[in-house]
C-alpha cells in the first residue's frame, strides 16, 4: 500500500473534491471539517513523502503499470516533495480563513479548493510533459472559479484578463509540447532530456524555439514582466483567503521552469544548456523594478501585497537565471518564504478589510483597526515580506545577494534588491500607520455595505503562517541543507533520469 | 390513449430494434439480444419525454406511404434539377396557404416534413391550432391545384395511418 503514497497527493483531493461535489447540497458545517481534515491528511502525506525522498532518493510511480517512457509516471524528488509540503501548509490556513464565513459568499468553495490542490499536486508530481499541461489546466480552471469567488465588479474584470491570457498561454503550451514531441518523439521528460542530449545538430534550433516558448508559458504563470501584468489586479481583487492561496499559483510557473528547464536544458543539453537564463535575468530585473514602483504607488493593502508578489517574482526569477547551486538554494528558500508570507499578509488584509467595513484596506480613508493582535501580526508579516530581520525574508534576501556574488554586473541586482527592501519598508510603514494608527476606530458593523452576513475573518490562520516564518529562520539550518541538496539534484538530473528510465523497454500491462 | 406501462411505444421499440441492428451492421445473437433489451428499455426510460403516443393504424399503409414519398422525392428532384439549372426568370415562386384537417400533432409534423422533403415546396409555418400550413413553393403556376395535389397525395394517407 505504501507504494501508492506517491499518488495520494493527487487522488486524495480528487476524492474529497468529488465527495464534496456529490453532497454539494450539504451544509457548510459538514463541508468545512471534511475539507480541513482532508488537507491535514494531505499535509501528513506530503511530509511523509518528503521524509521518504530525503531518505531513499527519488521515487517513481508507474501509472497503469506502463513503464516510462510509454506510460505516464509520477516522480517525487526533493523539489516535488518540497512543493507538496508548501502547498499543503498553505492550504490549511486558507481553509480555516474561508470557513469563517467567506465560503458562504459563493458556491462550492470546499470542492473547488480540493480540486485546486489536486491540480497543483499533479503539476508538481508528473514526469510527463503533456500530463503537466493537463494538470496546469486543472489548476487553472479551479483558480478561475476561485478567483471570481464571491463576485463583484473588480473580480469579474480581473478574472476576465486572467482567464483570457491563460487560455492563450495554454494554446502556447500545446504548441510547445507538440513541437517537442514532433522533434523528439517522446513526452516523458526524462526520456526527452536524453533525446535532446542526442539531438541532431540541425534540429537543435527547433528544440530551442520550443524551450523558449515553454519559458514564455511558464513565465506567464509566474508573472514575469512583460507577461505578469494580469497579476496585480487579480490578486488585489480576489477574496483575501483566495489571494492567499494564489500565493502558490505564481510559484507553479517557477516550479515548472525549475523542473522542465532544469531537466531538458540542463548541463546534458550541450548547446541548449541554460536556455533562456540570460534573457530571464534582465526581465527579472525589470520585473523587480516595476514591482518596486507598484509597491511605492499602492494605495491599499491588497494592491500593495499584489505588487509585492511582483517584486518576489522578479527576485525569484533572477535567482533562477543565475543558474548556480547557491543561487537556486537561495531562490528555493525565498520561494518557500514568499509563498507563505504573501499568503499570511493577504490573510491579515482580509482581517483588516473585514474590520474596516466600507473603508476596506484603503490607506486614504481614516479608520483604524484597533486590535493590537492584528497590528502585531501585520508588523511581523510586513517585516518578513519586506525582507527585514529577524524573519525569513531577511535570510532569503541575504542568501540571494550572497549567491549573486559581488562582481560589477551584479550591481543592478544589488541595487534593486536593496531598493525593494526600502520600498517595502516605506510602503508597509505607510500601510501600518494608515490602517492601525490613523483615524477613529473602525467598526465594521456600522458600515453601509455590511449586512448581517458580513463574513468574519479570523486572525489565527495568518498566525499559523507567520509561525512558519519563525520556523524557517529558527530551523533554517536543516531546511537550507535540504534545499541545497535539492538544488544539487536539479543541476545534476541524472539521478532522476535513472530513477525514471531504469528498465526502459519492458512491456507493461497487467 | 394510455400506453401499457411495460411497453409504452411498441412502434418505437420496433424502430429502435431495427436501428440497433443497422448500427451493429450485422445480425448476430448478441446484437439481437442487446438490441431487444435496448428497444424495450429506452422507450421506457424516456417515456416522460414522449407522453402522447402516436397511434399507427396500419403499418402496411405506412410502408406504402414511405415508398410513395421516396418515389416522389426522386421524381421531384429531377424536376427541381431543371428548375434550378434553368433560367431563374421562368420560376413562379409563391406563398401558399394550405388548410389541413389533421388533428394529431405527430401527423401534422409528418405532413409538414413530407412537404418539405419533396422538392418545390417547403413548410414555413404551421398555423395556430395547426389548422393550416404556410408553404413556399419554388414554382407554382397554379397554387390552388398544388394545394389540392398535396392534400390528396399526402394528407389523406397520413390521416388514414394516424387517425
Amino acid at each position, binding site marked *: 500500500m505504501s507504494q501508492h503514497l506517491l499518488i495520494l497527493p493527487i487522488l486524495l483531493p*480528487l476524492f474529497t473534491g468529488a465527495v464534496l461535489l*456529490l453532497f454539494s447540497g450539504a451544509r457548510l458545517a459538514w463541508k468545512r471539517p471534511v475539507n480541513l481534515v482532508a488537507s491535514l491528511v494531505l499535509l501528513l502525506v506530503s511530509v511523509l513523502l518528503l521524509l521518504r525522498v530525503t531518505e531513499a532518493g527519488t521515487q517513481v510511480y508507474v*501509472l497503469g503499470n506502463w513503464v516510462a517512457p510509454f506510460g505516464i509516471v509520477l516522480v517525487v524528488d526533493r523539489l516535488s516533495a518540497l512543493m507538496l509540503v508548501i502547498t499543503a501548509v498553505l492550504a490549511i490556513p486558507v481553509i480555516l480563513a474561508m470557513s469563517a464565513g467567506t465560503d458562504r459568499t459563493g458556491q462550492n468553495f470546499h470542492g473547488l479548493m480540493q480540486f485546486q490542490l489536486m491540480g497543483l499536486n499533479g503539476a508538481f508530481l508528473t514526469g510527463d510533459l503533456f500530463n503537466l499541461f493537463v494538470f496546469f489546466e486543472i489548476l487553472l480552471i479551479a483558480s478561475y472559479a476561485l478567483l471570481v469567488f464571491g463576485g463583484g465588479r473588480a473580480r469579474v474584470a480581473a478574472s476576465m484578463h486572467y482567464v483570457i491570457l491563460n487560455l492563450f498561454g495554454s494554446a502556447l503550451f500545446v504548441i510547445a509540447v507538440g513541437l517537442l514531441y514532433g522533434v523528439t518523439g517522446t513526452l516523458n521528460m526524462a526520456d526527452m532530456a536524453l533525446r535532446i542530449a542526442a539531438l541532431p545538430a540541425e534540429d537543435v534550433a527547433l528544440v530551442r524555439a520550443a524551450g523558449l516558448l515553454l*519559458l514564455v508559458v511558464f513565465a506567464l504563470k509566474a508573472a514575469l514582466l512583460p507577461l505578469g501584468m494580469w497579476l496585480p489586479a487579480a490578486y488585489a481583487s480576489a477574496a483575501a483567503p483566495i489571494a492567499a492561496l494564489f500565493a502558490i499559483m505564481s510559484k507553479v510557473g517557477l516550479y515548472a521552469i525549475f523542473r522542465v528547464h532544469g531537466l531538458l536544458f540542463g548541463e546534458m543539453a550541450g548547446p541548449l544548456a541554460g536556455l533562456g537564463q540570460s534573457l530571464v535575468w534582465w526581465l527579472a530585473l525589470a520585473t523587480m523594478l516595476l514591482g518596486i514602483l507598484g509597491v511605492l504607488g499602492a494605495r491599499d493593502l491588497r494592491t500593495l501585497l499584489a505588487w509585492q508578489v511582483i517584486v518576489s517574482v522578479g527576485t525569484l526569477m533572477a535567482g533562477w537565471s543565475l543558474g548556480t547551486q547557491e543561487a537556486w538554494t537561495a531562490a528555493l528558500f525565498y520561494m518557500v518564504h514568499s509563498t507563505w508570507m504573501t499568503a499570511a499578509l493577504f490573510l491579515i488584509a482580509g482581517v483588516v478589510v473585514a474590520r474596516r467595513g466600507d473603508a476596506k484596506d484603503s490607506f486614504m480613508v481614516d479608520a483604524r483597526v484597533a486590535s493590537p493582535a492584528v497590528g502585531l501580526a501585520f508588523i511581523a508579516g510586513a517585516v518578513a515580506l519586506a525582507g527585514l530581520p529577524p524573519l525569513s525574508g531577511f535570510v532569503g534576501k541575504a542568501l540571494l545577494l550572497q549567491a549573486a556574488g559581488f562582481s560589477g554586473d551584479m550591481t543592478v541586482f544589488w541595487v534593486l534588491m*536593496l531598493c525593494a527592501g526600502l520600498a517595502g519598508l516605506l510602503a508597509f510603514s505607510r500601510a501600518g500607520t494608515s490602517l492601525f494608527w490613523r483615524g477613529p476606530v473602525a467598526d465594521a458593523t456600522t458600515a453601509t455595505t455590511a449586512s448581517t452576513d458580513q463574513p468574519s475573518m479570523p486572525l489565527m490562520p495568518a498566525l499559523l503562517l507567520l509561525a512558519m516564518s519563525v520556523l524557517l529562520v529558527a530551523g*533554517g539550518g536543516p531546511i537550507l541543507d535540504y534545499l541545497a541538496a535539492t538544488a544539487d539534484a536539479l543541476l545534476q538530473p541524472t539521478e532522476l533520469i535513472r530513477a525514471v528510465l531504469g528498465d526502459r523497454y519492458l512491456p507493461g500491462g497487467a | 390513449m394510455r400506453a401499457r406501462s411495460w411497453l409504452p411505444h411498441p412502434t418505437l421499440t420496433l*424502430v429502435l430494434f431495427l436501428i440497433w441492428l443497422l448500427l*451493429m451492421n450485422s445480425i448476430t445473437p448478441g446484437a439481437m439480444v442487446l438490441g431487444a433489451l435496448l428497444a424495450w428499455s429506452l422507450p421506457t426510460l424516456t417515456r416522460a419525454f414522449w407522453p402522447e403516443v402516436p397511434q399507427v393504424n396500419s403499418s402496411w399503409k405506412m410502408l406504402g406511404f414511405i415508398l410513395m414519398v421516396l418515389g416522389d422525392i426522386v421524381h421531384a428532384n429531377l424536376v427541381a434539377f431543371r428548375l434550378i439549372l434553368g433560367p431563374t426568370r421562368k420560376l413562379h415562386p409563391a406563398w401558399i396557404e394550405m388548410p389541413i384537417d389533421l388533428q394529431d400533432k405527430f401527423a401534422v409534423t409528418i405532413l409538414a416534413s413530407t412537404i418539405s422533403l419533396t422538392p418545390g415546396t417547403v413548410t414555413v409555418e*404551421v398555423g395556430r391550432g395547426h389548422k393550416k400550413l404556410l408553404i413556399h413553393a419554388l414554382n407554382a403556376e397554379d397554387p390552388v391545384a398544388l394545394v389540392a395535389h398535396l392534400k390528396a397525395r399526402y394528407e389523406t394517407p397520413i390521416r388514414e395511418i394516424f387517425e
Partner: protein
Amino acid sequence: MLLGISHRESMLNILWILLLPLLGACLPLMAARLGRAWCAGLTVLPVLVALALLLGTAPAILAGQVLQFELPWLGQLGLALALRVDGLSWLFALLILGIGVLVILYAHYYLDKNDSGGRFFALLLLFMGAMLGVVLSDNLLLLVLFWELTSISSFLLIGYWYQDSGARKGARMALAVTGAGGLALLAGMLLLGHIVGSYALGDVLAAGDQIRAHALYPLVLVLVLLGAFTKSAQFPFHFWLPHAMSAPTPVSAYLHSATMVKAGVFLLARFHPALAGTEMWGLLVTGVGLATLLLGAMTAMFRHDLKGLLAFSTISHLGLITLLFGLNTPMATVAALFHIVNHATFKASLFMAAGIIDHETGTRDMRLLGGLRRYLPYTAVLATIAAGAMAGVPLLNGFLSKEMFFAETVQARVFGTWHLLVPVIAVIAGGFSIAYSLRFIRDVFFRATPNWLEKKAPHEPPRYMRVPVEVLVVLCLAVGIVPMFMVGGLLSVAATATLGEPAPAFDLVIWHGFDTALQMSLVAMVLGLVIYHFRRRLHAWHERLPLRDVRFVFEAAIQGLGRVSGRLANSVVNGSLQRYMLLLLMMAFLLPASALWAWPHWTGSRALMPVDPVTAVGVFILCASAIGTVMTHHYRLAALVQLSAVGLMVALAFARFSAPDLALTQISVEIVTIVFLMLALYFLPQYAGNRSSRGRLIRDAGIASVVGAGVAALAWAVMTRPLESISGFFLEQSVPGGGGTNVVNVILVDFRGFDTFGEITVLALAAIGIYSLLDGLRIDAPGRPPGQLINPHPMIMTVVSRPMLPIALAVALYIFLRGHNLPGGGFIAGLITAVALILQFVGNGVNWTQDRMRMRYHPVLASGLLLALATGVGSWVFGYPFLTSAHTHVHVPLIGDVELATAMLFDLGVYLVVVSATLLIIGKLGSISAVPKSTEASH
C-alpha cells in the same frame, strides 16, 4: 594577550544578557491588566537581572578579557548566534541597561493613565534587546539583524502616541532613514564577509589590511558609513531625529542619549580596526562629523521647543563624536568613547528634565516658559547642572571630553592645508553649544514668570520621578570631578577593544594647564555669551530665512515618490488586455524567432504527400471561412456561423488524415459549442461597431499574419522531418496489453488514462465553475429580436425532438460500446447523449425538460469522477499501480464472446462526467433568463 578566552559559565550569561530583555518583552504585555506598577516592575526586573549579569563580568572585562558565546545557526548563510563582550561592547551594554533602568523608572511616572503601559514597556524592552544585540554581536549578519530590529522597534516607540499625526510621520521618517541605512549596512556587511571570507567579527577585525587593500573597500566603507550616519543622525541624514521627538519623553531620553543614535557611532568604533586608517575614512568621517557638529549646534540655537533644542544638540554632539572617530588617532578614540558616556548621562537627564517641565506646565516652548525655578527649584538645579555638562563647564564630565576634543582638533591633519578648519569650526560649534545651554537654563528657569504659568502653579514631580535625573546628574558630577576613578579603567579597555591594539596612556584630570584646549574653551565661552546676547536678532534673522520644515519636504518627497511610482507602474500595467495580449504575443513570437533566425533547415528530408485537389478545396474553404469570420466579426451571428464552418472543415481534415476518432469528437464538440454560443449571444450585443483606428487594425493584422506565418513554418519544419517516436510501442501493445484495437482509445483509457482523468476533471471543474458564476444571476435579455411573441416551441421541432431522444441514446450507446476497438468511446457518447437532451431543452424549454429529467447534475458529475477513480484504485487490490487495466473475454450464453475491459468502466465515468457537465452548463445557462416555473405557459 589581547583577546583573552572566556570562562565557560560567563558565556551563557552573555546570552542571558541579550535574551532577558527580549524575552522579558512579554512580561509587561501580560502584566498590563495588573496595573501600571506591576507593569513597570516586571519590566525593570529582567533589566536589573541582565545588568547584574553584566556587572558580574566586569572583573574579567576590566582585566582585558573578551567573553564569547557561539551557537551555530544558519551556517549556509554565515549567520551564527555569536556574541562577544569586550571593553567596547561592555561599555555600551552598561549604558543601555543602566540608563534603561532609569528610563523605566522615569516612564512609570511619566506615562498618563490612558497610555497603554503594557505596550510601552514591551516595546521598550524589545528595543533594549535589539540594542544589546547590536553591541554584543560577534557576527556581522547578526549585527545587521539586530540593527534593523532597532529601527523597527524604535519606529513603534516613536509612533507610540499614534493618534498624533506628528508621531506617525516622525516614526515613518525615522524608519525610512534608519531602515534605508540598515539596508546599506547589510550590503556593506555582505561585502565585508565576502572580502574576508567570514562573517565572524574577530576575523573581520583582524583583516583590516586585507580589507583596506581590496578594490571593494571604498564601496564597503561608503555602505557601512551610510548605516552609521543615518542611525547617528549625521548630516545630511540628521533630519529625522528632531521629528522623532514626537515620542514620549522617556523614549527620547533613551533613544537619543544612550541607545539608538549611539548605534551609529558604535559602528564606527566597532569597525575601526577594519575600516579606519585610510584617507577616505578620514575625509568622510571627519567631514561629515564636522558639518553635523556645526549644523546641529547652530540649529539648536534656533529651536524654541525644548526637545527640539535637545534634539539638535544631540545631533551636534554626535557630530563631535563622529569627528573624533574620523581623526583616527588613539587619543581621539579615547575622547570619542569618553564623550559617548558623558553625552549619554547629561543628555538623558536633560530629556527627563524637559519631560518634567512639559509634564508640569503643558508646554515645551521656551518662548512661553520662564521663572520655573520658583516652582521647580529642585529640578532647576538638576537641569542646570546637566546643561552645564552639555555646555562643557568645568567640574562636569562634558568639560573633560570637550577639552580632549579641542585638543585633538588642533592635531587634525585630515584636510591637509585646510587643517585649521577643524579647530575653528569646533570652537564656533562650542560657542553655539554654550549659547543654547544658557538659553535652556535661563529661558526656562530664570527670567520673569509669565502670567499664565502663575495661574497654573506647577509643582515638583513625584519624588521617584526625579531619582533617575538625580542619579544621572550625580554621575555627571562624579565623572567630572574624579574621572579616572569613575571611568578610567573602563575607557582603557574600551579603547583597547576599539583600536584593536593597546590603548594609549591617558590621564583624565580637571586641570592640565592653560593649554590650547583651554584657550579654545575660553574663546568658545565668550563666543557663546555673545551669541546668547544677540539671540533675538539671530532669531529674527533666522525666521526670515527661506527654510522649510524638513518634515514637510520629506513627506512631500515620499508622497511624490509614491505618486510618480504609482503613475509609472500603472502606465505599464494599465489594465488593457489588448496590451497584455500583445506583449505576450510578442514574447511568444520573438523568443522562438530568435532561436530560428537564419536557420537553414526549414525543410526536412521526409517524403511529402502528393497534393489532392479535394483536400486543397477543403483547405481553401477552411481558410476562406476563417478569414470570413474575421471580416464579419462585428456581425456576431454571421461570424459565428462562419466559425462553425471552420470547425466542420477541421473535422473533415481529421477524417481525411486518418483520425476518425478526432473527426467524431470534433463534430460533436462543434455542435454543442454552437448551441452554447447561441445561448451566450442572447446576453451579449449582436452587433459591435468598429472602434479601433485604421492604423491599429493594420498593425494587428500585420502582427497576426507574421505570427501565423511563424506557426505555419514551424508546422512545416516538423512535418517534413522523419519522426522516431514512442508510438510504435502503443501500436504493438494495444491489443495484447490494452485489449483494444482502437489504439487511440486504448491510449486514452489505458496507456495515458491519467490524461483523460485530468481532462474529465477539467470538464467537471468548468461545469462547477460555471455553475458558481451563474448562481443567482438573472439576466433580462438586452432586447429581443422582432417576432418575440411567436410560439417559443414550434410544433414541428417539439414533435421531432421526442423520438430523437431514444434514437440518439441508442446511437450513443453504440458509440460507447465500440470505443475500445473502433472509433468512438465515452466522451463522444456523452456528447451525443447531451445533444439529445439539449434538443429537448431547445424543443420544449428548460422547465419542461428538467421536470422530466429529474437529474441532479452535481451528484452525477461527482459519481462519474468517483467511478473513474474507483476503477483506477481498483488495481491496487491486485497490487498494481493506479489505473492498471485488466481485460478478459467472457462467454455469455446466446450472445457469445464478450470482451470486458476495466477500461470501459473508466470510460463510463468519462461518459457520466461529459453528460452531466454539458447539461449542467446548458441547463444553468438556459435558466438564467427563464421565466419562473409558475408563470410558464403550458403547451
